[in-house]
């Protein structure tokens, strides 16, 4: 099989497995939708973002999209990699002629594809249920989604080496992202977050992805591309990938 066909072959199976896995369906697909519905139900009125007053639902659609992207890439890829590593599946794959880079990149592409689909779902839900208008810069939004998903998938590869059992994968990823959701402008608008917490959040990529996704909703003209924020997110992704290249484990943690 040629390279492209072999990659497509692997990707098809990985997508199928994602879709058939109840855990990934629940955490990745259902949870962000539930979050958007709940937040929109609890918080009413308007909020101030970048000096502009906007309906709170206009804030929550990109904010929960941030969560959706991170669930699809970071959480989902970490859980998949750790589970497959600890079950011995990755080790077995290493014994086949399938190139290691295909195993990794197919996983990452699953994360990106699911992130794009989730973003579209949340956008549609926001538009239909809450009248949040679709941003005019759909290109800028798509770039932010793809860069975010790809970067967080790379972070997942590095993070997976720190998780040693399949059972620990879901709690460990949640432990990493949940506090950051609170201080990075995902669960609550930035204007309501104390200054020192916001400063901490700016160190991490979630804050920057949230900002990059929010921009197309508040700026109704031009490309609405938050270049600086996306560069920081991408830098995290690249650094994580380089780290993963040196530390990635194929064999179960017990036997190395």
């Amino acid at each position, binding site marked *: 099989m040629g390279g492209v066909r072999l990659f497509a072959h*692997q990707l098809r199976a990985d997508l199928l*497995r994602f879709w058939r896995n109840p855990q990934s369906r629940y955490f990745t697909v259902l949870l962000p939708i539930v979050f958007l519905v709940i937040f929109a139900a609890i918080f009413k009125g308007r909020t101030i973002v970048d000096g502009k007053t906007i309906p709170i639902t206009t804030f929550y659609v990109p904010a929960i999209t941030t969560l959706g992207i991170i669930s699809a890439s970071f959480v989902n890829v970490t859980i998949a990699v750790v589970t497959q590593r600890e079950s011995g599946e990755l*080790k*077995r794959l290493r014994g086949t002629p*399938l190139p290691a880079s295909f195993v990794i990149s197919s996983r990452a592409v699953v994360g990106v594809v699911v992130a794009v689909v989730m973003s579209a779902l949340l956008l549609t839900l926001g538009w239909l249920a809450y009248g949040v208008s679709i941003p005019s810069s759909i290109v800028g939004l798509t770039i932010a989604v793809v860069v975010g998903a790809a970067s967080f998938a790379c972070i997942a590869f590095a993070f997976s080496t720190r998780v040693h059992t399949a059972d620990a994968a879901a709690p460990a990823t949640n432990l990493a992202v949940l506090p950051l959701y609170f201080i990075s402008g995902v669960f609550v608008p930035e204007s309501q977050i104390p200054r020192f917490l916001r400063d901490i959040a700016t160190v991490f990529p979630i804050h920057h992805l949230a900002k990059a996704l929010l921009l197309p909703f508040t700026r109704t003209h031009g490309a609405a591309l938050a270049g600086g924020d996306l560069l920081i997110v991408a830098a995290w992704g690249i650094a994580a990938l380089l780290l993963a290249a040196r530390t990635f484990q194929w064999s179960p943690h017990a036997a190395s």
Partner: protein
Amino acid sequence: MSLASAVLPASRGSHRDLVEVVHVRGLRKSYGGREVVCGIDLDVRRGEVYAFLGPNGAGKTTTVEILEGYRSRDGGEVSVLDRDPASVDRAWRARVGLVLQSCTMPPELTVRELVGLYAGYYPHPREAAETIELVGLADKRDSRVAQLSGGQLRRLDVALALIGDPELVFLDEPTTGFDPSARHHAWEVIASLRELGKTIFLTTHYMDEAQALADRVAIIAAGEIVATGTPETLGGRDRALSDISFSLPAGAGVATLPAELSEVAQLRDGRVHIQAREPARALYALGGWALGHGDDLHDLTVGRPTLEDIYLELTAERSPDGGLTAERSPGGGLTAERSPDGGLTAERSPGGGLTAERSPDGGERG
């Protein structure tokens, strides 16, 4: 020489590669300062089934995974299909199939999907449907992996090892967890692979499996090879004495046996055991004596050491002087009690398949 190796292009490898598929000299591996593989030598020839036996923790999996390229080694020379497994490429991987000691499969896929997925990894795969049938999963082909039983999962694992149509197959305890008929079926599969000229390196804890399948056997204990040979000759098995055993007739003592027998007779668990170099002569004398006592020796058995007897003896604790207990201990070692239950032995039928039959002498072939 098999067909496959006969048609192999000469340019494929060196001369040694054509004969010796696995070549190991002085292989060493330590974990945490403790040496678990202590300088072993192995040679596996093209087209043979090589069984690697040894107690738990002896170093089998460690050795196999070094040969597969999964683990690094601390010393020694290793060549597998004429390559050092420490640095192999995709082409080498395509020629090697493997079943790991423990591995779970993607639960979300069906048998057919998973086998098809793996088939796509190889340049010249076997037919997926036929491979599924070969391992006996045809009726499960549309079941999700999550719904398979332990033995069925293992069979699927074997199917994945074979799907790339490899020249060399490593099987680390491939039949553990199989029911007896599944195990015999697996033997047929392995025997049919041999017919195709494949080389099989397998580890197992089942002596009947090694007996039925292996052309050659190596026994490893505590990281050292303690014996190699064919199943028939391992540890001098072919030269071992026959064990004649029976219960004493009422009122008769060991001392009343003919002198030539009473000298070598031992009483164990209420039965008399006689180690005979010439079993027919011993039985002749014994028969006359028994009839003289008006007894037919209804529970008479004549046995020869099974592979298991030899194995147990070779892998027994090292004696205090540091050497291996090379001689059969008087009280134990070769017991004929193991034989009467009639271990299953398998013989290759002329057609190349395996036929299993219960041999009357218990666990002995021919």
